[in-house]
């Protein structure tokens, strides 16, 4: 167990934790896109069922934003790009791990 108590072990673990934190795909509200359209987009892009897609759509509508997905950066980037192709206001954020 000596390795884990070494003074240099702690910072290394912290860095590893940061690396492991997922990336978030966030969709922001806009006053133009129709609710049914947004539900359809969430279903097509993420493969969500109707209930989950509606829940996220309502969250965007009522709270101004919703985290649609979290995971590895490359996949998150691909989702953000697709959502922007569908004319939704989407961005990538780093999970702060809170």
């Amino acid at each position, binding site marked *: 167990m000596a390795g884990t108590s070494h003074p240099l072990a702690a910072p290394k673990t912290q860095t590893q934790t940061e690396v492991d934190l997922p990336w978030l795909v966030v969709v922001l509200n806009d006053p133009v896109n*129709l609710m049914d*359209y947004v*539900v*359809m987009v969430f279903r097509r892009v993420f493969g969500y069922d109707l209930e989950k897609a509606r829940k996220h759509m309502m969250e965007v509508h009522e709270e101004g934003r919703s985290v649609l997905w979290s995971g590895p950066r490359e996949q998150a*980037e691909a989702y*953000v790009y697709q959502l922007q*192709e569908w004319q939704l206001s989407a961005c*990538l954020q780093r999970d702060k791990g809170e």
Partner: protein
Amino acid sequence: MPELHLRISPVFLTTFRELVEGFVRHVGVQLSVQPQGPDPEDEDMMDAWREGLLASVREDCGQLMALMKDSGLGREKVVLEEENALAVIRACSAVRLKIQQLFLKPYGEEQLEEGELDFDEMGPELQQVYACYVFLAGLQELLVHEVDPDATRG
């Protein structure tokens, strides 16, 4: 395959076609959405991201214009390939966002979301543009119902 049954006066359709054609030119140069790439400081990546989105939206708008120029639209049933219907659906959003950015900014977001704009208080140009905005919403709604009926249920 998605089918479109739409009854609309040829006069209105001609007006909307001309308006949409103009907005499509805007959309093909400047995106309707903010291109938020993964790293705003990486200029090469941001350029590629923006150019990719522009290429996609130009293709989508091409499908919308092809539909608007279809001689059957507004008079008889028009049948679309699913991929083309999806492109038209996306293009409707791109053009509506551009209309909002260019003409409807003075209206509040809630007013716009609820469709509470007073048509009679608008000048003739804005009336035409707003009617086109509403027409594209209707067109999109019909097509969404065709490709994903569940999304429009309830």
